[in-house]
């Protein structure tokens, strides 16, 4: 099926700024879904609020545009009632880890079969460029004109510690790698987290003198290194990319089905 068949073309051109990494992530996601030959009716996309969350309006899947930070809570409900559907939850950095931080760790703890995508642009773009819990120290934002002092979360370590059974990181520059990771995450049984670094040239780039979208993409190339690569060994300050966790753990819906079966058996006898 051509890529365009997965889009709601009537809403294009989309509302993201020129050069926004979120568009590239949508592109990668569509290619991943197309590669898996999934039926549009098998997929549910649940999103919260923010630039990133607008993605659910552009895909021709079942879609839910819910409240800020609570996308994973809604997605848990969808998955439990219809376990056969593939549930994909794209979130921004603030949506996933500030407003929805609690939902994020508990969805990971339960290991429910949902694919969470953290589209990390390190800023609240839609509301005008406030710093987020993933901005990190020394970053300029509208709410931090003299730079931030807050340390950032490491999404990978957080997801890993909370119990996610698939954790990966890529960037909007490394599109083929990102598409591959999304493909693996969608097929993985259990809670999968894919963090994709995404450039916000309008707010983050302009405030922090990182130049235009092309320049920011080149920074992703220069400042990241593949897990297990020589570059990462030599320069450990680089941001590691790759698949950090790919393990098997009891999945929530299956465990719940077992409880239902046990309860019904008792009732029948």
């Amino acid at each position: 099926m051509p890529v365009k068949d997965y889009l709601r073309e009537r809403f294009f051109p989309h509302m993201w700024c020129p050069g926004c990494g979120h568009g590239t992530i949508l592109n990668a996601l569509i290619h991943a879904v197309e590669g898996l030959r999934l039926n549009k009716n098998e997929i549910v996309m649940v999103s919260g609020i923010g630039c990133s969350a607008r993605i659910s309006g552009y895909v021709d899947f079942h879609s839910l545009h819910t409240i800020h930070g609570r996308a994973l809570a809604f997605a848990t409900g969808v998955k439990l009632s219809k376990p056969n559907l593939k549930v994909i939850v794209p979130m921004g950095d603030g949506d996933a880890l500030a407003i929805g931080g609690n939902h994020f760790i508990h969805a990971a703890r339960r290991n429910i079969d949902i694919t969470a995508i953290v589209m990390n642009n390190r800023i609240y773009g839609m509301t005008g460029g406030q710093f987020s819990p993933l901005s990190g120290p020394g970053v300029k934002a509208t709410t931090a004109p003299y730079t931030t002092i807050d340390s950032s979360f490491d999404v990978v370590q957080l997801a890993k510690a909370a119990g996610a059974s698939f954790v990966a990181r890529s960037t909007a520059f490394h599109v083929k790698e990102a598409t591959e990771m999304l493909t693996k995450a969608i097929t993985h049984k259990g809670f999968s987290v894919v963090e994709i670094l995404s450039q916000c040239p309008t707010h983050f780039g302009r405030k922090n003198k990182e130049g235009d979208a092309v320049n920011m993409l080149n920074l992703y190339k220069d400042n990241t290194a593949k897990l297990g690569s020589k570059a990462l060994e030599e320069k450990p300050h680089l941001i590691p990319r790759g698949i950090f966790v790919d393990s098997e753990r009891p999945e929530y819906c299956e465990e719940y089905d077992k409880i239902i079966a046990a309860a019904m058996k008792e009732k029948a006898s």
Partner: protein
Amino acid sequence: MARQKLKAIVINRDWCKGCGICVHLCPKKVLELDAKDKAVAVRPEDCICCRMCELRCPDLTIEIQIEEGDNE
């Protein structure tokens, strides 16, 4: 494997926002921005069909069509 042959570079001008990602990251410098800041393929003969522009385009504007069943 035979080298892939380009059929056409299709650019949806209505969706293009002129961010220049395709122009600057194309390994063969096939694309350029025109006077209206829209991407155009000025050197399609140099295209190696790597499809990086298509995959990286944040506006989902570009489609690289490849000649099928050609075994030259």
